[in-house]
């Protein structure tokens, strides 16, 4: 659902302002929508509907949604430029933080449910298994982005430096797709779909940058 906030400002006396609309309607709805995948997972968990290997189901599910939120977040800028809906930039932070949220659940499901805090096995995994190495790296790189997502941190870092730091998300998304690709045993269809979407999103930026130059 996309609402043009300007449209609501036509009768300022009777209606809420676009800022209020964003804060009290759009963002809360989006917040709930972003939690729906998790709600579905919890629902299935409570109803013992996660299949024969629930731990694996949780791990794959949270991994899928991490990648999806990364791509959705990366779609914000192209969507804004292509459609002129400037409002989408106002929800980018929330989308990015949800990518981090699902990534954190993914890591927790691995460290807790899958390996049960067997740190020697976990360290060995990170060190020895390339798909885990890149996945772990991607998560480590996400942490500074989540920590610097507040307005205060943007101010403190300064717009330019903040932007440079947050361009890390391009690398993170690439590592995320590589992580999935290397995990698959033989049928690469699914990771390839993510790779194509990511290539389109990054390619769009490249073309935009070249045209501006």
């Amino acid at each position, binding site marked *: 659902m996309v609402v043009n906030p300007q449209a609501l400002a036509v009768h300022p006396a009777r209606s809420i302002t676009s800022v209020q609309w964003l804060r009290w309607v759009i963002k809360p709805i989006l917040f709930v929508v972003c939690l729906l995948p998790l709600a579905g997972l919890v629902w299935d968990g409570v109803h013992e509907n996660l299949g024969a290997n629930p731990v694996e189901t949780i791990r794959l599910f949270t991994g899928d949604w991490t990648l999806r939120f990364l791509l959705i977040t990366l779609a914000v800028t192209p969507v804004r430029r292509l459609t002129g809906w400037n409002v989408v930039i106002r929800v980018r932070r929330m989308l990015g933080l949800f990518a981090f949220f699902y990534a954190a659940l993914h890591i927790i499901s691995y460290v807790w449910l899958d390996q049960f805090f067997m740190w020697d096995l976990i360290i060995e995994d990170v060190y020895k298994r390339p798909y885990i190495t890149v996945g772990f790296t991607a998560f480590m790189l996400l942490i500074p982005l989540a920590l610097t997502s507040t307005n205060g941190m943007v101010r403190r870092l300064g717009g330019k430096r903040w932007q440079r730091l947050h361009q890390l998300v391009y690398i993170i998304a690439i590592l995320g797709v590589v992580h999935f690709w290397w995990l698959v045993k033989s*049928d690469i269809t699914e990771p390839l779909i993510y790779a194509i979407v990511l290539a389109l999103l990054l390619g769009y930026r490249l073309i935009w940058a070249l045209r501006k130059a």
Partner: protein
Amino acid sequence: MLIIKKTSDIKSSEITDKEVFLQRRRFLRAAALVTGGALAPGLILPSSASAGEKLAGVRKSAYRVDDKLTPYEYVTSYNNFYEFGTDKSSPAKLAPKMKTRPWKIAVEGEVNKPGVYDIDDFIKPYVLEERVYRLRCVEAWSMVVPWVGIPLGDVIKRFEPNSRAKYVAFETLYDPEQMPGQEPGLFGGGLDWPYQEGLRIDEAMHPLTLLGVGLYGEVLPNQNGAPLRLVVPWKYGFKSIKSIVKMRFVEQQPVTTWNNAASSEYGFYSNVNPEVDHPRWSQKAERRIGEDSWFAPKRPTLMFNGYAEQVASLYAGMDLKKYY
């Protein structure tokens, strides 16, 4: 075999759902009938042989582990059978349509009695046995399955392999119309079909090696490899090839599908070995499907999946890190 627990010991998560319970009841009743009944070979598979049909004349074998059985529902719904898709749930959805009758098995190569056998004739001379084996997947999960089958060694003797028969190669049905996973993928990247597996002749002759035709006292569901599959309990699951149409006796080590696809990950031997890691999974521990709690560490994987006493001698003097 049966472990009797006090009610207070049983967590609600351990209580078997009704369908499984009923299946188990039917199975136990059948087993009781069998124990008291005749053990005549010959009248084995029901004529239609559809999944879930009761198998008659099954003798309980001494080859059984005491581990708790993995519920029927999980054994038959969580399957790696890439001919029906790479999702664990796909085989249970897509395999039931496969036709398992008529079904021919070709016996070729270094044997005195080669030929093409109908599945029912192939099985007929033997008494079916029930064996409870651990199954360890290379993906670090495991199950405990009450298979019904016949020792492969007995079958092999009947074909009279000659002295050049050093290996047995197996092949799965190739039929993309019935096995959608064999269709060339949109982006390629699948396996080379038909699926091929192989054993050294002494592994094939080992008394633990089974040709499976059923589980839980019933005809094998298609997703579990009907009508005939291999069961080699001390090797990773992918060695136990499903829906077999060919056995070839050969002098050279045969090509096997996963080894061919990624030789650094899947060796010809693929014996369960906690000391030799797969590049993508530690093999030190495993999750027992349907039994281990979500909030518990995985259980340690045993050398040769716990069958070291029976099979370790097959590999005496071999460097198992090299011949993984």
